[in-house]
């Protein structure tokens, strides 16, 4: 299936399907048939629409999102003050850790912000020291969350 990413436009049914499957995708044998039943579509039509939404890039992925703690992992947010001429090198050093899942260049003295997930905080600290040693970037702050007030499940379209 070929979909022109820039020209693709969602209709009302596409939006309704996306809103339906963002946080509670059916956990039954025929999930697309179940969704179809709710919208008066048959299974094949739902599969076609969802495939198109995936192909167009609107849907990044369909799957599970986990609470790291409950899988025996810890997570944190880190920020580093990296000189301009070291940004590429530092990024490469940080991104090679599989536990670094998100990394952004931001407009601040602390210009590199990344999330780190790992089996333990000690391992994260050791990895941060390793990154400092390798890159010469000393100022990396580690900001684990102490309280969660919101993680939104859904972007209403």
């Amino acid at each position, binding site marked *: 299936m070929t979909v022109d990413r820039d020209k693709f436009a969602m209709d009302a049914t596409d939006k309704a399907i996306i809103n339906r499957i963002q946080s509670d995708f059916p956990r039954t044998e025929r999930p697309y048939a179940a969704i179809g039943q709710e919208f008066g579509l048959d299974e094949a039509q739902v599969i076609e629409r969802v495939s198109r939404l995936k192909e167009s890039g609107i849907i990044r992925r369909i799957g599970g999102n986990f609470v790291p703690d409950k899988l025996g992992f810890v997570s944190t947010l880190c920020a580093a003050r990296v000189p301009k001429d070291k940004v590429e090198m530092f990024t490469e050093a940080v991104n090679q850790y599989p536990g670094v899942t998100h990394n952004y260049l931001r407009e601040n003295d602390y210009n590199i912000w990344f999330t780190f997930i790992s089996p333990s905080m000690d391992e994260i600290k050791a990895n941060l020291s390793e990154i400092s040693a390798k890159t010469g970037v000393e100022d990396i702050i580690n900001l684990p969350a102490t309280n969660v007030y919101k993680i*939104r499940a859904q972007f209403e379209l």
Partner: protein
Amino acid sequence: MLTDVDKKVVAAIQGDIPISQRPYKELAESIGISEAQFLEAVRKLHDQGVIRRFGATIRHQKSGFSANAMVAWKVDEARVHEAGKIFAGFKGVSHCYRRNPVSTWPYNLYTMIHAQAQEECVEMAREMAHAVGVEDYNLLFSKRELKKTSMEYFPFDDDD
């Protein structure tokens, strides 16, 4: 406690599940269990809150929320929980956390905010500041995405 089957199921659904008639059957076969066992494990992980959210992740940029910013707030500790709850009530806020401040970075409350344009993010932050009565905050727009992936928990070992 997670069983070995649970871990394999987590590994199977942490990526992209197939868009097909019987996606769970395909995944179950890939890890050598039955579709029924697979679904039972998924439901259990969901009921236990191990799965925080099960479904489609959308790209904000392609769905009309093209601007986003991380906002770091310096809030009086005595009011931080109250402020966190107020921020959580804003529709444009997707994430809100408290984090310990450090000497070089005194902020203790963090929000991710989303809007159609950068100016709207600035305006939203202004409204949020007003709602909580906080003056010291820092909007951190992203200049470049350097990495964005999902965590790979329990990757299959070669000797599995």
